[in-house]
């Protein structure tokens, strides 16, 4: 006792509050849990929203723009950057060649999509993806020890770390691609590919991708090329004419930001053949703006749970007031002021809220862990439990203040306790 009491006024109050919480251990526990759920949910909702927004709009993308068939910019970005949705169509190889040789373009990487392995997208591309592309400034794809990148002329594949983890594929494994972007066991290609490398984790959607040479995509059994307008089917041992080749998209990195503006004018506003999704972050931000109402509803629900938690503090303390009237009368008879008794109850409510808020971090971690697993499995975007968000301070502090506020009503009741009347037992 001495340590708390020697702290002075607040220490004395805590001494009384701790005993009260201990005496009402069960109701305290239940209330703490409800506060923990409210605070944890609030923090999780805001953190997931913020991290998702950052990951989809300004995260480690590594490209400035995507060139694709005429259509929706959003669909193009979702399909190529996040490996979701279907491709809006194909571009002739000549467009890829032209933009690749444009001096304003630093990097142009072709993507050909349309196959999968057990739901994981297979992307045909050039080996620039390993040598030139940086998914984050200064960070290129790294093949894990024991592996290597694919040979552009062989039926070889490099897989993302998440693919390896989920499918069990490893260096030396052989697999058959399946046609289409969604898994259908009846759509198995006859071609067999050998894994030559597993990439180090990047915590980007690329972890969910199987990379093969783009030539392999052209030559996949059953695939036809229509780059020239006529149907062409590749034959073994025979070079594919460039005019027949086509790509799903071209991933671009510009030498300067102005290039994007100029190309936006020439391709999107004046041209009719292709679409340039630029800037990628803005395309995704527009999507988030459109679905902003979902965020608002989630935030509203989280706030509602917090308010219910505060109400549960009020109810649990208020309900104990009748049985505690004698306790307050005794404290008053011993010399405690009305203000002291009032403060004890407010501090008790705030303590329950603070305890619940601390436990709320465990709830937050659990929700984020579960949410992270789902989001990573669906999009490849990885959420970080330890990523700071201001709600991690504002949430617990706000909840504690709200808890203290909810203690005011029962505290007023304690404040008004008549000492003389309540000093004798009621039964």
């Amino acid at each position, binding site marked *: *006792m*001495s340590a708390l*009491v*020697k702290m002075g006024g607040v220490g*004395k109050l805590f*001494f009384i509050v701790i*005993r*009260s919480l*201990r*005496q009402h251990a069960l109701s305290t526990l239940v209330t703490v849990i409800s506060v923990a759920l409210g605070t944890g949910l609030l923090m999780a909702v805001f953190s997931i929203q913020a991290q998702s927004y950052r990951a989809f709009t300004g995260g480690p993308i590594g490209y400035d723009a995507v060139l694709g068939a005429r259509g929706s910019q959003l669909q193009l970005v979702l399909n190529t950057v996040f490996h979701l949705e279907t491709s809006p169509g194909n571009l002739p190889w000549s467009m890829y060649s032209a933009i690749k040789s444009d001096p304003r373009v630093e990097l142009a990487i072709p993507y050909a999509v349309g196959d999968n392995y057990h739901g994981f997208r297979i992307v045909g591309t050039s080996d620039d993806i390993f040598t030139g592309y940086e998914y984050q400034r200064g960070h290129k794809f790294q093949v894990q020890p024991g592996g290597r990148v694919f040979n552009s002329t062989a039926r070889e594949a490099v897989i993302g770390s998440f693919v390896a983890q989920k499918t069990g594929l490893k260096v030396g494994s052989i697999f058959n691609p399946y046609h289409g972007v969604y898994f259908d066991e009846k759509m198995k290609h006859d071609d067999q590919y050998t894994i030559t490398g597993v990439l180090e984790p990047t915590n980007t959607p690329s972890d969910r991708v199987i990379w093969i040479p783009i030539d392999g995509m052209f030559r996949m059994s059953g695939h036809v090329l229509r780059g020239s307008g006529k149907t062409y089917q590749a034959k073994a041992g025979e070079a594919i004419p460039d005019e027949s080749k086509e790509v799903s998209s071209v991933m671009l990195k510009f030498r300067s930001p102005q290039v994007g503006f100029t190309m936006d004018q020439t391709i999107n506003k004046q041209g009719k053949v292709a679409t340039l999704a630029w800037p990628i972050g803005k395309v995704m931000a527009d999507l988030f703006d459109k679905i902003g109402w979902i965020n608002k509803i989630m935030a509203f629900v989280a706030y509602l749970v917090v308010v219910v938690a505060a109400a549960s503090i009020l109810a649990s303390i208020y309900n104990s007031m009748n049985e505690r009237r*004698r*306790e307050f009368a*005794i*404290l*008053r*008879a*011993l*010399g*405690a*002021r*009305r*203000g*002291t008794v009032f403060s004890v109850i407010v501090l008790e409510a705030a303590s329950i809220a603070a305890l619940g808020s601390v436990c709320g971090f465990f709830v937050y971690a659990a929700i984020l862990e579960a949410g992270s697993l789902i989001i990573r499995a669906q999009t490849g975007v990885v959420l970080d439990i330890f990523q700071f968000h201001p709600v991690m301070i504002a949430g617990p502090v706000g909840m504690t203040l709200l808890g203290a506020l909810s203690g005011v009503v029962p505290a007023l009741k304690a404040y008004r306790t008549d*000492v*003389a*009347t309540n*000093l*004798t*037992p009621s039964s």
Partner: protein
Amino acid sequence: MSILEIRNLKKSYLAPDGEISHVVDVPHFALEAGQQIALQGSSGSGKTTLLNLIAGILQADEGEIILAGESLSSLSEAKRDLVRAKHIGYVFQTFNLLQNYTAIENVELGMMFGPGVDSGFARSLLEEVGLKDRLDYRPRQLSVGQQQRVAMARAMANRPNLVLADEPTGNLDRTHARSALALIRQLCRENNAALLLVSHDHDVLGQFERVEQLSSINRAACDSGTEEEVRS
């Protein structure tokens, strides 16, 4: 020198039937430092109200209570609380120990709102009342007699000038009542505290050198109904 002086003290309640019932009407009463007086009063004679007025728990309608040189009538409620904590020890018939506190914590709680907690003194008080090996027991783990001894130790916790005892042995059997009474009187003597005890028990009253009839001090005691009847 008077540690307590009462002048023209009056307190009345509004009865449920709308009539005003006078419960306390004390023209004059004084208690010297270290003096021990027993007041004999039957149920309804206003003894608890009188003690609560002296303790500053209730505010008088009229008159003056001077405690240790300070007039309670002129003090705010908060200051009366402080005076009570510093100068008064109160022993109740029902002990009024807090059940979620140990014996020593109950005594220390008595110190908390006064000059400050002195754990060593709290311990020595409990040792003096024979509870050396019961310091960490909660009230429900103690016998009734032991609970009353904790209450007595708590009343002495702030080295008060005045101890008020309201039927302190009312819940004890005769043997325990006598030893409890002897103990509280001894504690008051050792701490030079005046003792004002109210009781209707002749066995208790018989042990005091000075016994006064409450009705001789409180003019309202003769003509009022029972106190409980009035206040309810």
